[in-house]
Structures are given as C-alpha cells and as structure tokens.
C-alpha cells in the first residue's frame, strides 16, 4: 500500500522527469523497431509508417501510463480547480457572499461544537475513564435529589462492594494560605487516601496520602498542583518537604501533581487529607448529608447495574429496620451509582445539544442559500455547459467540475470558519460558559478543527449533488437555444429553487420562534420575585479557620464585633450574617420536625432549608415580616431558643395560621426527651427563592440564631444607602481590623448573584437571537437572489406584456405574489418546525408552552417583513423593464 502511494508521490513530485522519461522510452521503442525493420529490408519511410501504425496513438498510451500511476485523477482535479477558481474570480460578489455565509455558519458550528466536545464528548484525562462512577444519596420524596455521600457511607463501603475496584471520597473547600499579613484564599480539596489511585492519576513527584494521615492530629501534609508549583516554587525539584502555612497551621508538601491533572470542574490547587474522627464516621451520621462526594472505579468486566445492585444490597444490610431507616425509606432513599463524567454534565447537556441543533439549522439555511445561488449561476452557464458536453465532456467531467468547485468553496469557507470559530471560542466566556461544568476547558482542539474541515468537505459534496443533477439534466439541444425557460429541466430547477427557499424560510422560522420562546421564558424568569429586595445589598463570604476559632464563644464574639463595626459605618442601613445567601447555588437542606405533628406512617420527611442568622440579617436582605418578629442579634445570647420560619413552612403545618409559639426540632424524628433541643417560633417571614428563581417546590425554611447553631462559614450581608459595589472596599479593611489573616471572598451584590444564576437561560437566548438574526439575513439574501433571477429570466415576457399594454403595477404584483406564495408555504412549514422545536426544548422553558401564539405571530410578521423587503427591489426592477431594450437584447 505505502509502496504505491510512494510511487504516486514520486511521479507527482518529479512530474517533469516522469513525463520526459515516458517520452524518451516510447521514442526509443519506435526507433529500435524502425531500426529492426530497416535492417530486415523495409525502406525507412514505410518502416516509420508501420511502426507508428502498430504502436497506435502515443498520446493514448501515455494517458494510460499516467492512469496506471494514478496521475489522471490529479490532473483532472488540478484542471477543475483552475476552472473553478477562474469562475469564482469572475463573480466576486457571489464568491464573497458564499464564503462569508459559509465562514459564519461553519464558525458558529465550530464554536458550539468546541463547547459540546469539551464538555460532553472529551473523555476525562484518566485511564479507562469510562469506568469511573459517582455514588450519591438521593431522597427524592423529601425533595433532595442529590445529597452527596457521608464519611459513614465511605467507611462502611470500603472494600465491601465487590463491583467497585476502588472507592474514594473528596470534599471541596477553601483555605487561607500564606504567612500572616499576606494570606490568600485558595481553592482546595480534601481527599481520602485512595482518591488519586481511583482516578488512576496521582503525584508525579512525591507520594499520595496514606491511611495514617487521615486524622486531625496527623494530617499536616499537602499535595500541590502543577500550577501552584510553578507559581510559588518556580518548578523547584526540591519542593518536597517544604512547608505551607494553611489556616495558621504548617503543612509539609508530600507530592506534586502532573500538569494535565484535572478532576471534573475542580479549581482546587492544593489537596489535603480528608481527616475525620471515629465520631464523624458513626452509623447515626449515615444520612447527615454533606458536601462530601464519593467516586469509585468499576472493576473490569462489571457493569453499572451490577454496582448499583450491590450498593443497594449493602445499603439494605447496614440500614437495618430502625426508626431512622424507616424514615429514610419513606423519603425514597437510595444511593445512586452513575457515570462520573455524564452525571457531572447532565444538567447542561440539553442546552448544549439545543444550541448545536440551532447552529446546524443555521448551517442548513446557509447551505440551501448557497445551493440556490449556485443553481442560478449554473443556469446562466447552461450554454457553456451545453457546448462542453457537445464537444465530448462526459458526465463524469461535468460532475467532477461541480464537485471540485463546491468543495473548494466549502473548504475555503471552512478555513475562514476556523478563524471565525477561534474568535467565537474566545468570546464564549462573555456568555458565562466558564461557569458551566467543565466550561473552563473549552478550547479549539485540533480534533475539533479536523472534524469541522471534514464536515466542510462533506457539505461541499452534498451541495454539489443538486447542482450536478441540474447540470446533467440540461439537454444539449435546449441548452443551445437562447431561451431555455420552457425546458423541463429548467422548470424542475425552478421548482427546486423555490422548494429550497420555502425550506429556508421554514428553518429560519423555527430558529426565530425558538429564540422567541427562550427570550420569553427568560423574561418570565426575570419577572419572578426572589422574595427579598436584592437592590443595594452586598454579600461576601468569610470562613473562620478551625485552628483559631475552635470555641463557640470565639466565633460568636467575632460575628458580633463584625456586624457591630459594619453597622456603625456611614452609609450602611443594616448588616447581618447568614450561613448561606439565597441563590448561591449551594443552600443546605436538612429536615426538621414540629412538636405535636408526627409524620403519618409512610409519609416522607420533608427537606427544608435551614439557616443560622446573626445581626440584622432580615433587614439587610430585605425580607418581609408576615407575623411576629425577626430573630435579632440578642437572641444568640439568650437562653431561650427561638427561631423564625418562612411562610411556606408555616402554611404547610398551620394552613389557617397560628405558627407563633409552636416548637420546631432539627432532625427527621420526633423529639421525645429532647425538649431542650427545640426552638420556639417567634416570627414568620416571606418565602424566598432559595436555590434558583424557577423553583416551585416551596420546601420552606427555618432561620435559627447563629449563637445556637454555629458554623465556620458564613456570608456577611450589608444593605447600603448608596451603590453597594463600592462598599466592598470598606468591608475588607473592617474584617482585617478584627483579624488580619481573614480574607473576604466572593464579594458580590445580590443583584449580580441573581444575574449569575440566570446564565444558563440568558446565554442560550442570546445565542439563539444571534443565530436567528443571521438566519433572517441569509433568508433575505436567498429570496432576493431567486426573485432577481426570476425577473431576469422573464425579461422578454415582461417586455412583451408591457408592450401590449400591461401596467407596471400588474407586473409588480406578479412577482410580489410569487414571493407571497413562497412566504406562505415557508410559514406553514415553519409553524410545524417551530412546534417540533418547541417540544424539543420544553424542558428548558419556564412557564412557556411549546406553541406560543404571540411568539408565532411575531415570528411570522418579522420573517414576512424581511422576505417581502427582499423581494421588493427585484419586483420594482421588473416593472421598470423597458420593452424596447428587452426585446432588442438578443
């Protein structure tokens, strides 16, 4: 095989030598034969004649030799390419339009496909990554579809699930790193010893963590990423054993990860042991859902289903039949095993696929446009084609000429599209794609570029098919006539052109109405009230390091001083703290029971949002008080335990009112003998959207005083009288004045947080809007081109009619009604397409039906205006045809 390729390449490269050698060889043959003939007594003249006659055509023989070397194909290709380039240069307007169309359409597809490839398709950078799974606890009936896994789960499952060759847990977080006075907050991840082994990728220098390092006394070690190594140690080989100060405690570096280590969307730059004590792994904490996540590697030869059933069986064995197990069973508890990568990107998958479908629609519209323009051009070249066929151009020649031209166009457009796509990929973060799962990994992968160029090649061949069909159907005879309008071939071609225009309008209609639905849905989401007043509210995150804030009193003192200092600052209207701000995407849910309201048998415990608040949180965030009073700072120090619930919670238990004075117990089981752990409801506040604006499960929320339920991580929330953003520069020094080691993270206004939470809705709507804008432009170009051609083709007919007394208005009407007919057919097709698209995107829409009358009407009007505008110019030109000129023009 390679030998033939080599021989072909040699012949191509040394083409001159090949041709010369061939000529010389055949000349030698003839001369030698003539010599022999003369030697045998034939006169030279006759010998030459005979030699030539017996050899036959030297040129034919040479052609056959070239064919034997596979050179004919290249010759023909080069000839066709020269012809195509000549043709394209003769019509710069057409060429530029075609190339621009292709560049934009292919570029749009490349941009989206880069996202699809990087997020959905590219395998994780681990060996046999398809065997990696995630295991998480789900309580669907309680409203908690994913609650991570617990250390107890990890402890109980290690080495006991046969289908899982390796099992590990990790917990993402942040840590304050650096010497006092120059600390920085770093993203970190705490991992169990077998974390790296499970992934199949670990430290290139040093070692992974050991089992002995998993306690609070022995966990003073750290594994650093390549990025951290480069930034702080300039890739110094002697980094192992050096110390990093983390949350005020020194940790020794024991390992360095390779440059290509990348675990899902993790931003962690430092890895710590996930230490715990025996108490944290007790069976009673099995369902104390947390931010701990479990990954595992399937044993070779086992399936996901086997792993799932083994995990189910193991769960059943450890759960037993206790009251807790019963409650969990009522909540629909199950530990779900799912593919790691697919599960991680599952939420974004439909949106990405929808965007890719939109881009493909755009490409289809562009391709139809191109086909139509090429068809028109081909019919202008009918005569040339007819002459070529008459002088012996075979079908193959006609087809290959067309294919070479269209593929040259699409490949040229594909190359330009690579440039457009590269720019588009650069612009993607503007749409917020860097916040998608794996979104920071989007790049112009060489494999993506090659795929796109191959696609361009296929597109070129596909576009060539109708053109080639048309060119072949042209009869030599009809082509030779000057007017070929009446021929069946051109009537069929006209039907084809019109069909393509109709398809184009239909597709543009679907795209435009899809964008309309997305926009409408976004509008509806934005109109949803978050349940608090987000304007002029700034929130930033503070994490108190365990090492320096171990006692409850220390934490409470810090919070009280912080809130007091902020409240005294000019321009601050209210300040408070909360363990999690709404819409941050990670509000924690737990369960609570109400005194005197035991669960009915079989009834699922309900998850509720629970928060601890300090200072004047409710005024700062702008909650409405429905009944009673807010929890205030002083409640943290009072012995009486009080709490506030929201109206969703109050309505569920006391639909007719009377929540004030009732008792609430954290946890999912009745509080017999735990009276001291209860909280008395002193107020009811308005319900806020906790997780996202579109949630409608109204789980309810309980707000406890910070002093009675503490946490090391919380948000400080400030309502200002002026611009909230500017307060960030005041907030940091206030915090540093209390504790110089303490940074404030993630400082953002609540308005900005709400904006951010909509990124998965806004970006698709925006992209769809851009796509449909381009689609409309293409449709206008297409309609204009086809109608212009129709007018040009009928110039003589129009001229005749006008000479016989037809009014310009009548002529105009003829073409406008042609355009209207096409528009009507396209719209009818479009409504069906729009309905199908609407169905396909139903899951992405918020309170918008698949078929929305106003959107359809708006789409129809917009497209109608655009395509009629596009047909007006040619129609008016038709009405201005001068009979004398047209008839004289032969």
């Amino acid at each position, binding site marked *: 095989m390679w030998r033939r390729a080599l021989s072909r390449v040699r012949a191509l490269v040394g083409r001159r030598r090949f041709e010369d050698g061939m000529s010389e060889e055949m000349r*030698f043959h003839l001369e030698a034969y003539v*010599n022999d003939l003369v030697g045998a007594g034939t006169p030279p003249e006759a010998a030459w004649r005979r030699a030539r006659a017996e050899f036959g055509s030297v040129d034919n023989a040479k052609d056959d030799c070239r064919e034997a070397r596979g050179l004919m194909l290249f010759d023909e290709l080069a000839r066709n390419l020269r012809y195509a380039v000549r043709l394209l240069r003769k019509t710069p307007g057409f060429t530029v339009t075609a190339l621009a169309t292709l560049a934009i359409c292919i570029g749009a597809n490349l941009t989206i496909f880069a996202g699809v490839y990087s997020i959905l398709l590219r395998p994780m950078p681990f060996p046999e990554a398809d065997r990696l799974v995630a295991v998480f606890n789900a309580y669907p009936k309680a409203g908690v579809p994913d609650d991570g896994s617990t250390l107890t789960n990890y402890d109980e499952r290690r080495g006991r699930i046969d289908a899982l060759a390796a099992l590990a847990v990790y917990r993402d977080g942040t840590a304050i790193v650096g010497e006092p006075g120059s600390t920085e907050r770093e993203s970190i991840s705490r991992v169990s010893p077998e974390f790296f082994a499970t992934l199949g990728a670990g430290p290139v220098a040093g070692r992974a963590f050991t089992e002995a390092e998993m306690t609070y006394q022995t966990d003073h070690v750290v594994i650093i990423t390549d990025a951290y190594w480069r930034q702080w140690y300039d890739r110094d080989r002697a980094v192992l054993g050096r110390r990093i100060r983390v949350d005020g405690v020194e940790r020794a570096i024991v390992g360095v990860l390779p440059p290509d280590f990348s675990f899902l969307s993790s931003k962690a730059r430092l890895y710590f042991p996930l230490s715990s004590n025996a108490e944290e792994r007790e069976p009673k904490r099995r369902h104390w859902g947390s931010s701990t996540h479990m990954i595992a590697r399937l044993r070779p030869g086992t399936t996901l289903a086997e792993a799932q059933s083994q995990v189910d069986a193991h769960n059943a064995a450890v759960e037993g039949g206790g009251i807790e197990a019963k409650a969990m069973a009522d909540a629909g508890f199950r530990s779900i095993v799912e593919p790691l990568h697919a599960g991680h990107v599952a939420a974004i998958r439909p949106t990405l696929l929808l965007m890719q479908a939109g881009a493909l629609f755009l490409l289809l519209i562009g391709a139809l446009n191109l086909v139509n323009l090429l068809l028109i051009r081909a019919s202008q070249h009918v005569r040339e084609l007819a002459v070529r066929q008459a002088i012996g151009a075979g079908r193959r020649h006609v087809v290959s000429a067309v294919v070479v031209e269209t593929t040259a166009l699409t490949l040229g457009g594909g190359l330009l599209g690579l440039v457009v796509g590269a720019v588009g990929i650069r612009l993607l973060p503007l749409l917020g794609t860097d916040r998608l799962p794996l979104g920071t990994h989007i790049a112009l992968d060489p494999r993506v570029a090659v795929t796109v160029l191959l696609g361009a090649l296929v597109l070129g061949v596909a576009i060539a098919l109708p053109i080639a069909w048309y060119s072949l159907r042209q009869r030599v005879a009809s082509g030779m006539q000057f007017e070929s309008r009446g021929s069946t071939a051109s009537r069929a071609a006209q039907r084809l052109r019109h069909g393509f225009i109709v398809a184009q309008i239909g597709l543009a209609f679907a795209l435009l109405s899809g964008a309309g639905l997305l926009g409408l849905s976004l509008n509806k989401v934005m109109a949803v009230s978050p349940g608090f007043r987000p304007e002029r509210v700034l929130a930033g995150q503070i994490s108190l390091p365990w090492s320096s804030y171990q006692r409850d009193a220390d934490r409470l003192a810090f919070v009280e001083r912080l809130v007091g200092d902020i409240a005294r600052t000019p321009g601050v209207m209210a300040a408070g703290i909360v363990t999690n701000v709404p819409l941050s995407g990670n509000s924690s849910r737990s369960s609570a029971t109400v005194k005197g309201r035991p669960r009915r048998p079989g009834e699922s415990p309900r998850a509720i949002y629970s928060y601890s608040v300090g200072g004047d949180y409710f005024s700062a965030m702008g909650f409405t008080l429905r009944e009673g009073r807010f929890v205030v700072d002083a409640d943290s120090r009072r012995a009486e335990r009080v709490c506030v619930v929201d109206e969703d919670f109050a309505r569920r238990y006391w639909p007719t009112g009377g929540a004030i004075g009732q008792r609430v117990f954290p946890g999912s089981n009745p509080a017999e003998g735990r009276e001291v752990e209860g909280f008395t409801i002193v107020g009811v506040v308005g319900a806020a959207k906790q997780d996202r604006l579109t949630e409608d499960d109204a789980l309810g929320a309980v707000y406890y005083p910070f002093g009675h339920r503490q946490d090391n991580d919380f948000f400080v929330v400030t309502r200002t009288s002026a611009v909230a953003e500017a307060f960030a520069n005041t907030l940091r020094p206030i915090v540093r004045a209390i504790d110089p080691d303490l940074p404030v993270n993630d400082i953002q206004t609540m308005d900005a947080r709400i904006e951010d939470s909509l990124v998965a809705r806004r970006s698709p709507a925006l992209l769809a809007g851009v796509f449909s804008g381009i689609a409309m432009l293409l449709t206008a170009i297409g309609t204009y081109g086809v109608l212009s051609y129709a007018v040009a083709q009928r110039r003589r007919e129009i001229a005749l009619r006008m000479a016989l007394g037809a009014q310009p208005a009548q002529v105009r009407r003829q073409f406008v009604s042609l355009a209207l007919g096409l528009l009507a057919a396209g719209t009818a097709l479009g409504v069906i397409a729009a309905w199908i698209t609407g169905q396909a995107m139903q899951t992405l829409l918020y309170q918008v039906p698949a078929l929305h009358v106003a959107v359809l009407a708006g789409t129809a009007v917009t497209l109608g205006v655009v395509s009629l505008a596009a047909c007006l110019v040619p129609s008016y030109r038709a009405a201005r045809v001068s009979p004398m000129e047209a008839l004289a023009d032969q």
Partner: protein
Amino acid sequence: MGKTADLLPGTVDLLILKAVSLKPLHGYGVLLRIRQISGEALEIPQGSLYPALYRLEHQGLIEAEWGESDNGRRAKYYTMTATGRRRLREEAAGWNRLAAAMAAVLNTTPEEV
C-alpha cells in the same frame, strides 16, 4: 500476423513478468523476447505494453532503471523484484492448473465419458 494467437485478458501481465524474470529488459526488448520464446505465436499489442509496464512498476512487481542499450543508447531497463517473482510463481501455477484442466476437458473422447 495471422499466425499470432489472440491473448486472453490478464495474460499480458503474466507474459511481461515471465520475460523480465529471465533477464533485465527494456520495453522493446520485452516485446521481442515474448515473440521469441512463444515461437512467434504471441504478440503483445504495442500500445498496451507500456501502460502494463507502468502498472506493474506501480504495484512493485518490477523495477525500472536507466541504462545503456546494446547500440549505446539510453534506455529504461526493467528488472524483477522479489514480490514480482512470488507473484509470477503463483500466477504461473494457477495458469498451469487451468491449462491442464482445459486440456483434459478438450481431449475427452466419447469413450471416456
């Protein structure tokens, strides 16, 4: 010309391979050698000789090299490659089987049936 037999399709390549296997030859030499060893019974059409040579070279069965002819002119000589030799053996064996079978069939008399 009347004494030459018609060539069966596919036999041209086989004949050329055989001729070249005996001794390196230039194109015209191949023609003469086949005429000679077939007792003037087989003659390759001159027009199809060169395409066949180029095809065999392309397939790596023969190799070409410029050299000097008997009368001191530059000429292209074809030699056999190892692949070509193997191919010739296979084709010759196949051809002999076919010829023997054909002969057996054609020589059958009514008595033998």
